[in-house]
């Protein structure tokens, strides 16, 4: 029997062209591969947009069979002290590349978690071993990387993935796994993914456990997410002054096991596109955030949510 793998690993791109939704960056990386050389790189961007995928795919294309020997991934947030740079990184950096490769690649994940001291130690290591080694630093914000290192690197900013990018990859995975995937289900996956490919593929894999025919409800259920329409309706009713109807809706969602945090997060996300005046939207977002904060600080979830909805209802009269 075939062993079940985690799909995010199983479908990690083998080639640069498979990395979805970062065309401009991928083009550049491909030409590095063609020239068999690359500068030190910084990949910055949110989670699940292809930073690691691009680095691994590039290493595979560069080195072929010996890629695993010439490519090391270190997670900086596991070991982020200066001694990591001085020992581990340096030891890897100064050994010669395996096979016929001209240099090795060190991929430093979450490099912005490295302390400043560790980063300063890194900067000269990068320069000194540039004959045998290239660094790729991945981070959420490039500005957290100290300037002297940025000065030694080319910076690539990965953007949040578009609908098309998520959809094309999800469809590909579904095909490979022989899943039936309706258009609605694709939309649902995109909605829960929030531009994060890892989350999209995880949602798909979780749903596939239930059935090979993926429906949107399954996606929402498995990710404990409310359907966007339900949340929109809740907000609308509250704003129309139908306080008790809105309260029922809320009750319903909570019964499904959706957390108060999730409801607030979704309200915040959806309010921006609703058909209400701009000033109102901003005020609603502010109040949602306030409720979220209070609950986080230990206030009672139900009381805060009810009060929030009540405040929406009262707010409805004004413009």
């Amino acid at each position, binding site marked *: 029997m075939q062993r079940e793998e985690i799909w995010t690993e199983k479908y990690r791109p083998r080639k640069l062209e498979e990395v979805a939704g970062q065309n401009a*960056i991928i*083009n*550049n990386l491909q*030409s*590095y591969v063609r*020239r*068999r*050389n*690359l*500068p*030190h790189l910084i990949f910055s961007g*949110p989670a699940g947009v292809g930073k690691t995928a691009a680095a691994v795919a590039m290493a595979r294309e560069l080195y072929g069979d010996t890629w695993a020997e010439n490519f090391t991934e270190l997670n900086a947030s596991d070991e982020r002290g*200066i*001694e990591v*740079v*001085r020992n581990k990184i*340096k030891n890897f950096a100064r050994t010669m590349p395996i096979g*016929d*490769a*001209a*240099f090795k690649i060190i991929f430093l994940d979450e490099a912005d978690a490295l302390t400043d*001291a560790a980063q*300063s*130690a*890194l*900067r*000269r*290591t990068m320069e*000194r071993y*540039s*004959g045998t080694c290239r660094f790729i630093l991945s981070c959420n*914000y*490039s*500005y957290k990387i100290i*300037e*002297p290192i*940025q*000065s*030694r*690197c*080319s*910076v*690539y*900013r990965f*953007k*949040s993935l578009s609908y098309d990018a998520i959809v094309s990859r999800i469809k590909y995975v579904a095909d490979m796994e022989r899943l039936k995937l309706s258009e609605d289900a694709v939309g649902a996956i995109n909605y829960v993914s929030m531009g994060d490919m890892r989350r999209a593929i995880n949602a798909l894999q979780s749903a596939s456990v239930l059935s090979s025919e993926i429906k949107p409800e399954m996606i929402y259920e498995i990710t404990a997410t409310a359907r966007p329409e339900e949340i929109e309706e809740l907000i609308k009713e509250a704003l129309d002054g139908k306080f008790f109807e809105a309260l029922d809706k809320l009750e319903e969602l909570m019964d499904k096991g959706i957390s108060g945090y999730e409801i607030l*997060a979704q309200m*915040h996300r959806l309010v*921006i*596109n609703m058909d209400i005046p*701009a*000033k109102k*939207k*901003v005020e609603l*977002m*502010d109040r949602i*955030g306030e409720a*979220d*904060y209070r609950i*986080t600080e230990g206030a009672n979830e139900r009381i805060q949510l009810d009060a929030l909805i009540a405040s929406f209802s009262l707010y409805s009269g004004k413009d």
Partner: protein
Amino acid sequence: MRVYDIMDMQGSSVEWTEKYRPKKLREVVGNEEAIKELKEWAEAVYKAKSKKAAILHGPPGCGKTSAAYALASERGWEVIELNASDQRSEGVIKSIVGPASTSNTFSHTTRLIILDEADNLHGNEDRGGKKAITEIVKKSTQPMILTANDKYGMGKALQRNCRTIKFLQVEPGKVFRVLSEISDDEGIEIADETLRILAKNANGDLRSAINDLQAISMSESKLEKGDIATGGRDVEEDIFAVLNKIFGVEGYDMQEALFSLYSVDKTPEESIQWIYKNFSYEYDEESFLHGLHYLSRADTFLGRARRCENFKFWRYASSLMACGVLSAKEMQGGKREGWQRRYFRSPWQREQRSGEDRKSAPIREEIAKKIGAYCKVPLSYARFFVVPFLQFFFLDERKAVDITASLRLDVPQIAFLVSDTEIGAKEGEEKAKRIYREAIAVGVGEGEKEVTVEKSKKEAKSKVVKEEIERIKEGEEEEVKEVKNQKTLGDFF
């Protein structure tokens, strides 16, 4: 399996920043002053009394390390290098640099010890490192060069024992010339316009400019202007596009404003500074207040995120700062007549001005010392209660001359005191010189001290300074005992 062309791979894998590192000092681009100083130091290093170590400090990529290596190769010195990626605790430094710094028994070759990133000694790992360096610097018979981004990170004792040489950012024109030489050399076709943009974006960091050039030259052999967009240092331009959306320059799309804010490579903490700094007069009072209210709410959420270490609050901060400000614009419904939008190049512009303050701080301090010595008052009193008033006295040129003569101020100090009046910098400097000349005449006339006009100004000045130092020392001692014979501000009238 693929077979690589080994020669080709190795041939091309050299970084240009290493390949084109200058071999001679005159090849170092920019920083002529600093290079001259470095040469002087290198000449003087053999003399008995010269300081054996030099600190080269300046921003990244301006040529500090390159200059050090170029100097060594020009003079045929051996190089021993120790940088932040090596452990630099007391023991390590002494065992490596210690012997090297004092012995040259076997040969007569000089060894240059380069301590890169000397401002980056790490508290725990490099325990005792700072002290060890200071000691070695004092004892060393061999030249040492310490490089640093920030000389203040190095400790005062160390600075006192070294010659400090300041490096500045490399001018865009010079960066451009280097880039075009390299691209000629590498045989890449590239438009001058592209190079010019690269040079400008580098912000005085030559190394990053060369890296960018290499990066984009790897991607395409023929380069156009558009290639730069992905090449790197374009974050700054991005933020202005975001601001345009948030300030509703092109319409009122909240979703778009928010998404563009999300995708810019800045945290909300920084973004809010940009928005706040540029959010201003183009609004009427009511919509301004509206926008400001939500900016303050966004700020509140930023504080919460920081305090709770829960970064989900960033999403509220982001949407409030983006949508709140945008809705203020919608409220007003368009641009105020005749208002030209101009963005501040940096939210830290005001802080930069205080950087100039920092520059003038030493001058202010010197003046305070002179006053302290002359009037026999504590330094802190002179600093806070006398210096500010002096600036008003200096509005009257006759008083200024008298005060200058009594306090023996020099030109920069006078210039500082007249600078706060409403005249331009150039005029201020002329005024300062005029006051200085007249003050010398007054001083001679009174015959107080043998300051002669024939002596070059420099000599006179250094003499005065020496005297002043002695006076200050005396002054301080006297202060401890009992302040007698106090001259007061009244003496100046």
